[in-house]
């Protein structure tokens, strides 16, 4: 692990004029202790007086891909921005209420909610043995579903211990995609419980097709297509874009807008 994200933050800091969270410390040496240093350096979010603490601290991230440009690992990292970290229910709403809803996003964009310290990337230590449940939504549902999903995560509704890593909402051309990431793809009891909780908190119709995908498969798949062909957080997308040659096969075609 290195501190790509920190570097990225510094690169970008021109835009966020009043951001005390991105100190200019480009002179910092690259060392193995960087992560540790980074953690110590980063101001820990703590619940304020009278606020309702969350079980875990979380960060919100935003990423966007310019259409037509190859989504290399490099550009994924360059295109992802950390919006903020919070430790309480109230702090969450502060950020959330000052952000646009996913359904109002334009273009090829994603919001990510991850536990503080876990980067929304397959390669993160917390994610590398993990996987994600994917739900494809027809247009118009993303804002509501995303809100219900993240409220369930923040409120610890999944009851799978430390397994949840985060969630992503991906806004795409014809559909939107929700995914929830967990640590251990091979833990079937956990993945089944996450699936069942998802059905409940999103009020999904019983016939909803839900797809579980391990991150190692996502990485492998990207490699067979050549390096850097897809967005790291969003494994299957590129396949559809490049001609519907999606490994998820017929499952994909049955969902959402085809069945409305």
């Amino acid at each position: 692990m290195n501190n790509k994200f920190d570097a990225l933050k510094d690169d970008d800091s021109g835009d966020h004029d009043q951001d005390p969270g991105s100190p200019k410390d480009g002179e910092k040496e690259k060392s193995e202790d960087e992560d540790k240093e980074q953690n110590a350096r980063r101001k820990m979010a703590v619940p304020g007086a009278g606020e309702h603490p969350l079980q875990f601290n979380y960060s919100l991230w935003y990423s966007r891909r310019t259409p037509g440009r190859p989504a290399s690992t490099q550009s994924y990292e360059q295109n992802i921005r950390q919006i903020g970290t919070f430790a309480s229910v109230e702090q969450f709403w502060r950020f959330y209420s000052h952000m646009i809803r996913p359904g109002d996003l334009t273009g090829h964009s994603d919001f990510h909610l991850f536990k503080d310290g876990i980067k929304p990337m397959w390669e993160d230590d917390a994610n590398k043995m993990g996987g994600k449940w994917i739900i494809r939504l027809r247009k118009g549902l993303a804002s509501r579903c995303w809100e219900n999903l993240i409220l369930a995560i923040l409120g610890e509704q999944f009851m799978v211990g430390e397994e949840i890593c985060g969630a992503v909402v991906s806004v795409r051309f014809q559909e939107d995609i929700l995914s929830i990431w967990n640590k251990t793809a091979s833990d079937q009891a956990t993945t089944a419980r996450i699936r069942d909780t998802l059905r409940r908190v999103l009020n999904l119709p019983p016939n909803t097709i839900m797809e579980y995908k391990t991150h190692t498969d996502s990485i492998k798949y990207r490699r067979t297509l050549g390096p850097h062909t897809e967005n790291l957080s969003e494994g299957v997308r590129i396949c559809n874009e490049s001609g519907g040659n999606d490994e998820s096969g017929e499952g994909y075609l049955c969902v959402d807008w085809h069945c409305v």
Partner: protein
Amino acid sequence: MSTDCQKTTAKAIPSTRRVTVNDAEHMPHDYCTTPGGTLFSTTPGGTRIIYDRKFLLERRSSPVAKTPPRGLPNIPGVTSPTTKDPIKKELLNNNVASPESSHTGDDAQFEMDI
């Protein structure tokens, strides 16, 4: 008869977390919730701070929740309006969600026609 019965080792109850209640609004909305969230102190998985959707949505209207966060990066179209579109501007200025998410939690979960 087995004489060496297995003894379960006693474990201390996880440490107490104190929650200050300064305001009646911080009190839980029902009797199965403790202030500061429901504590499942000795359930598998240990202590968890659990909030249901309704409670979380109620907290949205708290004064803190309405204050813009410090250090919010300026991302046009995401944390600030891209254009002078009055609707979007209003949305951000009022800290009010788009109509579909400005509910207070007492509405039923929507039916999703997938």
